[in-house]
């Protein structure tokens, strides 16, 4: 894979809002340690589906302004982790341990209450509403908002993703897979979230589109947004992550900065195909 030999990755200096410096350089500059407040803190999280234990006591945190990635193979518990953080209730599911979001213990909260704390979850498989128009999908993203700037934000998302502007009145189901993923991201941004959770944003998309989607995540990072990203595509995820965790069979087996993990021989062998 030629892409993996390419060492050039974008570098971020100290971020200032609104400025998005993107330089391609040969070596990654040392990243400043994350200084922001803790947005999400997960402690000894254990999740069961009936008798099956999917998460076996995991710990991680996400601080303001960070991109944190959780990588792992199919069935490792990645999606379960995200769904538990955002409070999606499922059949037979039981949760032990602590999930703290912005200072609130939320492990028993319903999803809609957690969403209103400022958690936007871009679900696996995009899950846009296919029978509703692009505009209605975006308006649904702003469901909890009472302010008068919703229309302004819709215009902003249509500038960010021009295809959504062109297809504003069309049903979301008529968009292509990549466009639907953009709609899902724009819908998440409509809530003016404090943290965005991405569940496998690359899933089911063509390689060129996958690159576009990761560029979007990178751009959101440069805007200073806080992101928790769950991905099977380990290389792309580690490339944009400040920090990352490796999840295997419901246990976090490794953690470090994105760069440390990229260079870890075990990761190279197991996930990067080197």
């Amino acid at each position, binding site marked *: 894979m030629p892409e993996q030999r390419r060492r050039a990755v974008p570098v971020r200096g100290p971020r200032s809002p609104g400025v998005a410096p993107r330089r391609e350089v040969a070596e990654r500059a040392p990243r400043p340690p994350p200084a922001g407040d803790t947005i999400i803190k997960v402690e000894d999280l254990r999740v069961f589906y009936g008798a099956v234990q999917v998460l076996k006591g995991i710990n991680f945190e996400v601080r303001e302004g960070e991109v944190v990635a959780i990588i792992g193979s199919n069935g490792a518990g990645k999606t379960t982790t995200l769904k538990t953080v955002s409070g999606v209730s499922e059949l037979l599911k039981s949760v032990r341990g602590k999930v703290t979001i912005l200072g609130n213990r939320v492990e028993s909260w319903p999803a809609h209450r957690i969403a209103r704390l400022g958690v936007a979850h871009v679900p696996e498989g995009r899950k846009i509403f296919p029978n509703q128009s692009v505009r209605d999908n975006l308006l*649904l993203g702003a469901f909890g908002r009472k302010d008068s700037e919703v229309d302004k934000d819709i215009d902003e998302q249509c500038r960010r993703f021009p295809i959504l502007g062109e297809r504003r009145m069309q049903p979301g*189901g008529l968009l292509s897979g990549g466009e639907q993923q953009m709609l899902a991201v724009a819908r998440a941004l409509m809530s003016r979230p404090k943290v965005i959770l991405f569940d496998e944003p690359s899933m089911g998309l063509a390689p060129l589109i996958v690159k576009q989607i990761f560029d979007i995540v990178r751009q959101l990072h440069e805007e200073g947004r806080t992101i928790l990203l769950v991905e099977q595509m380990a290389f792309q995820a580690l490339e944009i992550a400040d920090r990352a965790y490796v999840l295997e069979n419901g246990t976090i087996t490794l953690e470090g900065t994105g760069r440390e993990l990229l260079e870890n021989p075990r990761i190279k062998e197991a996930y990067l195909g080197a």
Partner: protein
Amino acid sequence: MARLLQSVITGLTNGGVYVLIALAFSIIYMTTRTINFAQGEILMVGSFIYFGTAVTLGLPWPVALIMAAAGAMVTGLVVYLLALAPLGKFDPNTNIGWILTTLAMSLMLVEGFRIVVGEDQHRVPTPFRSVFGRTTILDIEPKQYVVLIVGVGLALGLEILHDRTQLGRALRATAHDKATASLLGINTTAMVLYSFGLAGVLAGIGGWLLGPLIFVSSNMGTLIGLKSFVAAVVGGIGSTRGALVGGLTIGVVEQLARAYGAGEWAEAAVFVALILILVLRPTGILGEALIEKV
């Protein structure tokens, strides 16, 4: 010709009630994918509350109407809490269990009212006699037209409400995918309660409209509920416009069959119409096919 015209108009005015109850079926189906077979009995409860407050207690009719609608709304919520909520944690795909529990609620309401208030049929005077006197239009009394106007008016009002507001978008989102809707901050349980409450109000208004047309009795709602269910399916269940078209269609089909010799077969004609529509167009007249692209 005059007879045909009169049959069609009578059918349309009868259809007003079917429109209301078909709307109730549709909105509950939207949020829960279940059929509330107690819907006709909730109409009966509304009729009895109106009879009790307006006739027995002699309260002014607008007060009695509000009490009938409120009582029917509470009945709808109770049906949800007793028959559906306890099953909510089970697999939503096994909807058959849900439907049977609403059928049980329907039987319990009919028998409960029969035991408590008896089998008598009660006459409810129309509140519009004082307004319209004894005038008729095409030999049809004004109270009949009121049924049509209220049915069509509420259907159009709800269509606009659910088409243009966040409430409507949230309802459709809940209908399509509860988990994703909740991730956007939508309280899906509140949406389900709203749909049962609104369906109850519609049935209560239906009970108020129907009281002066037929006698109020414990079994008045059963056939109305069944025919309205047919109307909802014929129009396309889950669609507000479908409930409107289906309700009026069923009203006219039934009345034409009654006027042109079918007599006691008029009710059967409704079900023949159902079979024809389901063969020709399984989603109903206005039922939409789902757009899904993966």
